[in-house]
C-alpha cells in the first residue's frame, strides 16, 4: 500500500499544484481524499499507514469521520455521523483511481514534505503514513466536508483569499471542537496558517501546518518532528517544536486561533516564528540570490535542528526531578547567534540540566536494580539468610545512602553476586564507616529519597554526606551497609569503622565486596 501511496503521491502532487487552478478539481480531490482517508482510517484507527485500508470501504463505518460531501456543505457533525453509511455507499461508487488521487491530495496537505528551496513543495517525499493517523481521527466524528472545503479554500486562494477559508474552517471547527483535539488542532493550525499565509506559502504551508499540528496529537510525534523540522517551512518547525512537548497547550492555543477569522497571531510562539521566517523568505525571495538562499536554508536547517534538540531537552527536563533551573530552550535556541550570546546563563543551565539528567539516569538504574534484587531476594531469603542479608544490606544501604533525588537508589550491579563473607577485607573499608549507631529495624527505613531532607536517620545521612564529598559512589555504597547492619541486627550498635564489621562476619564481606568494585 505504501508503494501505491507513494506513486499516488507523486501524481497527486501534480494535481495539487493545479489545485489552485481548478476549483472543482480540488473539491473533488478533497472529497475523494476524504473518502480514501476514511477507508484507510478504518483500516488502522491508530497509527501507521493509513492507506493500507484503501480497499476497506466497508470498514469505514467505524471511524467514520471523513464524511465528505461532493458539494460540501457545513453540515453538523451529527448529520455526518448519521450519514456515514450513506457516505460509504456513495463512496463505493467511486473507482479506486479517484481514491488514490484523494489520498495523494490529502497526503500532500497533511504531510510536510521537506520542500525544496522553492516555496512550493514541488516534490513532497513519500508519504508519512504515520502522520496520517492523527489527522484522520480514529477519534472521530469530525466533519470532514466543511474542513475539506476549507482546505479547498486554501489551495484555491493561495494569494490571501484564505480569509474565507478560516471562516468556514472555524465554523467547521466549532462543531468539531467537541471532538478530538488533534483534529481541532489540525483545523486551527490550518486556519492559522491560512490566516498568516500570504503570497508564497499557501499550499504547502497549510499542509505543513496541518502536519505539524497532527504531530501534536500523535504519540510518535518525534518522528514527525524530524520530518517536519526538515522542511524549510518555519511553521512546521516551530509548530512541532512547541507542539511536541505540550500537545494540550498547543491545541488549546490552536483552538483560540480557530476562533479568529483572519490573520490572528494569537497563537504565539509558533506564529511569531512562522511569521518571521515567512517575512524573511519574502524579503529574500525578491533578491533571491543563491547565496542568500543557501544561507537562509542553512539557518533554517540549523534552527530546525536546534528546535528539535530543544524539544527533546524540554521533554527530558520534565522527566527529571528538581530540574527547575532550565529555561525554555525552545525560545532560546530559536534566536540567532547574536541573541544567544545574551543567554549565557541559560546555556549554563542547559549543561546543568544535562548533568542532572545523567545523575538521575544513573540513580534510576541503580534503583531498579536494587528493587529487582529485593524482589528476588524474598523467596530465597529463608534458605540462607546469612548469606543474603549482607547483600540486602548492601542494597538497602546504597539506597539509603545514595541520596538520589526522588527515588531510592539501587545498589551497584555487581553487588548481587558478591555476598561472600570475608571479614578480613572489611577492615580496609573500615575508615569509611563513620556511621553513628543505628536504631531498631522499624525505625530505620531511612528514606533514601530524603537524603537531603533529613529524617530520623539524619545522623547516618549526615555522615554519609560527609563521606560523599570524597567519592560520590563508593562511600555511599559502603555506608549503607552500616545502616543495614543496624537494621538487621538491631541490638548491635554500629560504632565507627571496623568494629562494626566484627559482629557480623558476613556483612563486612558484603560491604567489602561492594566497596571493591567501586574501588
Amino acid at each position, binding site marked *: 500500500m505504501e508503494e501505491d501511496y507513494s506513486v499516488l503521491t507523486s501524481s497527486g502532487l501534480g494535481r495539487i499544484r493545479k489545485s489552485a487552478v481548478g476549483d472543482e478539481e480540488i473539491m473533488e480531490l478533497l472529497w475523494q481524499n476524504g473518502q480514501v482517508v476514511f477507508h484507510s482510517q478504518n483500516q488502522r484507527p491508530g497509527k501507521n499507514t493509513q492507506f493500507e485500508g484503501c480497499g476497506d470501504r466497508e470498514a469505514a463505518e467505524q471511524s467514520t469521520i471523513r464524511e465528505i460531501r461532493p458539494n460540501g456543505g457545513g453540515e453538523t457533525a451529527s448529520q455526518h455521523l448519521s450519514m456515514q453509511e450513506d457516505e460509504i455507499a456513495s463512496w463505493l461508487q467511486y473507482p479506486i483511481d479517484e481514491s488514490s488521487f484523494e489520498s495523494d491530495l490529502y497526503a500532500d496537505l497533511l504531510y510536510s514534505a521537506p520542500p525544496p528551496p522553492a516555496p512550493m513543495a514541488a516534490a513532497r517525499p513519500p508519504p508519512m503514513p504515520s502522520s496520517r493517523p492523527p489527522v484522520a481521527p480514529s477519534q472521530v466524528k469530525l466533519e470532514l466536508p466543511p474542513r475539506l472545503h476549507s482546505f479547498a479554500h486554501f489551495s484555491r486562494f493561495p494569494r490571501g483569499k484564505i480569509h474565507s477559508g478560516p471562516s468556514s474552517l472555524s465554523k467547521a471547527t466549532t462543531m468539531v471542537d467537541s471532538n478530538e483535539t488533534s483534529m481541532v488542532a489540525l483545523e486551527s493550525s490550518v486556519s492559522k496558517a491560512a490566516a498568516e499565509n500570504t503570497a508564497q506559502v499557501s499550499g504547502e504551508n497549510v499542509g505543513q501546518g496541518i502536519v505539524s499540528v497532527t504531530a501534536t496529537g500523535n504519540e510518535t510525534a518525534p518522528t514527525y518532528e524530524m520530518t517536519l523540522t526538515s522542511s524549510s517551512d518555519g511553521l512546521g518547525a516551530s509548530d512541532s517544536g512547541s507542539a511536541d512537548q505540550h500537545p494540550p497547550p498547543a491545541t488549546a492555543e490552536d483552538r483560540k486561533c480557530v476562533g479568529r477569522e483572519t490573520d490572528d497571531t494569537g497563537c504565539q510562539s509558533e506564529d511569531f516564528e512562522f511569521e518571521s521566517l515567512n517575512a524573511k523568505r519574502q524579503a529574500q525571495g525578491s533578491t533571491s540570490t543563491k547565496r542568500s538562499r543557501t544561507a537562509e536554508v542553512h539557518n533554517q536547517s540549523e534552527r530546525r535542528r536546534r528546535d528539535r534538540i530543544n524539544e527533546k531537552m524540554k521533554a*527530558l527536563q520534565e522527566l527529571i526531578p528538581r530540574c527547575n533551573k532550565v529555561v525554555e530552550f525552545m525560545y532560546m535556541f530559536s534566536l540567532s547567534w547574536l541573541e544567544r550570546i545574551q543567554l*549565557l546563563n541559560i546555556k549554563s543551565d542547559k549543561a546543568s540540566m544535562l548533568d542532572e539528567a545523567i545523575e538521575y539516569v544513573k540513580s534510576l538504574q541503580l534503583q531498579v536494580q536494587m528493587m529487582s534484587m*529485593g524482589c528476588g*531476594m*524474598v523467596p530465597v531469603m529463608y534458605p540462607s539468610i546469612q548469606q543474603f542479608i549482607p547483600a540486602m544490606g548492601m542494597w538497602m544501604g546504597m539506597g539509603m545512602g545514595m541520596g538520589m533525588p526522588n527515588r531510592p537508589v539501587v545498589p551497584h550491579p555487581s553487588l548481587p553476586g558478591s555476598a561472600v563473607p570475608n571479614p578480613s577485607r572489611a577492615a580496609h573499608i573500615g575508615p569509611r564507616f563513620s556511621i553513628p549507631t543505628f536504631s531498631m*529495624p522499624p525505625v530505620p527505613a531511612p528514606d533514601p529519597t530524603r537524603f537531603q531532607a533529613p529524617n530520623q536517620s539524619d545522623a547516618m545521612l549526615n555522615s554519609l554526606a560527609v563521606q560523599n564529598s570524597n567519592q560520590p559512589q563508593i562511600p555511599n555504597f559502603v555506608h549503607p551497609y552500616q545502616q543495614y547492619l543496624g537494621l538487621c541486627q538491631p541490638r548491635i550498635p554500629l560504632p565507627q569503622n571496623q568494629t562494626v564489621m566484627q559482629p557480623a562476619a558476613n556483612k563486612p564481606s558484603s560491604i567489602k565486596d561492594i566497596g571493591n568494585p567501586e574501588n
Partner: protein
Amino acid sequence: MSSRRSRMRQAGVSRISEDQIADLVSKLQQLIPEIRNRRSDRVSASEVLQETCNYIKNLHREVDDLSDRLSQLLESIDSDSAQAAIIRSLLM
C-alpha cells in the same frame, strides 16, 4: 558543575554550550544501553535526548512495577522480619 560553569563563562558563550553539551550528551549516551549497544559513531544529540527520555520513562515504569511487587511481597511475609525491613526501605 559550578566550577565548570564559571570557567565556561570566562571562555565565552559558544564554547560553553557546544563542547560542554556535547560532552554531556556523550556521557548520557554511554548510560543509555540502547544507544551504547548501537555503537554508531554519529549519534545526534536529539536522538540521545530522545532515547534518554524514553529510557527514563521505562525506568520509571520499572520502578513502579517493582514497587508494586515489593508491596505485595511485604504483605505476604512477616512484618517483623528482616526481610520486611529491607523491603520497606526499598519501597521508600
